[in-house]
């Protein structure tokens, strides 16, 4: 699966991001999560998988997760990950102009 690259000029469609992240989690855990489901307390994700999620988001959406953003609460649910991606992309777009 190679999701198309998004650029800062074509703002992300949150639903599409939620979809892609859900597919990634489903492939890796063999369980399709709800967008609001806490992946960690429901045992779908563990500490090793958490880092995989970081790398997946960085590679798929060309963002860098660093500093205070690098904390588990941002990766608990598919929705929180999509929100993080949206925010990081908006920041990147903001610094581009």
């Amino acid at each position, binding site marked *: 699966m190679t999701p198309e690259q998004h650029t800062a000029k074509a703002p992300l469609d949150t639903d599409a991001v939620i979809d892609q992240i859900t597919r990634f989690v489903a492939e890796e855990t063999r369980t399709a999560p709800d967008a609001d489901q806490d992946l960690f307390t429901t045992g779908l994700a*563990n500490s090793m998988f958490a880092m995989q999620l970081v790398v997946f988001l960085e590679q798929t959406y060309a963002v860098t997760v660093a500093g205070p953003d690098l904390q588990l609460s941002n990766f608990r649910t598919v929705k929180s990950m999509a929100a993080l991606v949206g925010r990081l992309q908006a920041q990147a777009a903001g610094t581009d102009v």
Partner: protein
Amino acid sequence: MDEPLIAIVGAGVMGTGISTLVVGQGLPVVLVDIDQGVLDRAATAVRHGLRHGQLIGALPPGTAPGRLRTTLRLQDVADADVVIEAVTEAPDRKADVLAAVSALVSPGTPVISNTSGIPIDEMAAWVKDPGSLIGTHFMNPAYLIPMVEVIRGPRTTDPTVQRVLSTLTRIGRRPVVVRDAPGFVTSRLLHPMINDAARVVSEGTATAEDVDTLMQGCLGHPTGPLRTADLIGIDNLVDALEELHARTGDERCRPSELLLEKVRRGELGRKSGRGFYSYSEAQS
């Protein structure tokens, strides 16, 4: 030892994880290997591990990482306050490295082996000062697992034990000291269990996934034995089982055919991208 310098010999799975732990706790590390490619990969893996540790909240927030220096020269361990040997689980290799290290460091410097199960007193024959030799059994990933088994050999001195315990406390670990025996406590229990899990799979009783799921769901194992095998590295697992088998005679420690076959095929676990499970590049 306000800011002790820790030297680590062997930059594989464990050397890398222990380096991540130590620099993540703000202390400097000298990391030695015989292969420049391994050292380059280790430096990248440490950067990745520091992010992983931060993500999980396993490293102290707001601590500037200590300096990581990688080197091919074993002589660079000479100034260290503590040396940790984490080379391949092969007695002849460990003998060479431990003999050389013990001749380089200043008297009284603790020389630690991170062996999975070779008795400390057997290794004491290889070093200049058996009193300074001690075992620590960090688990992988060392920067995520807060507990460390410490093995006191019959000849290990009190000051050595004290210095190692205070170093471990300084890097946020909780030590438990045990006596010397093949496999100590954790490998003596874990390694034959993983070996049996591989046999269960090759006998067709269940898939690797189902074995792990049952061990997690029914017995509270955090990841399951076969995911643990992949995390350890199946080559190292086989080496450690062979050393255990040679010293205990326990048939449960004779590496199972499935593990041997995986090593022959280069399916070593996370470190090679495939073992009992497949790992994308993002995972390793």
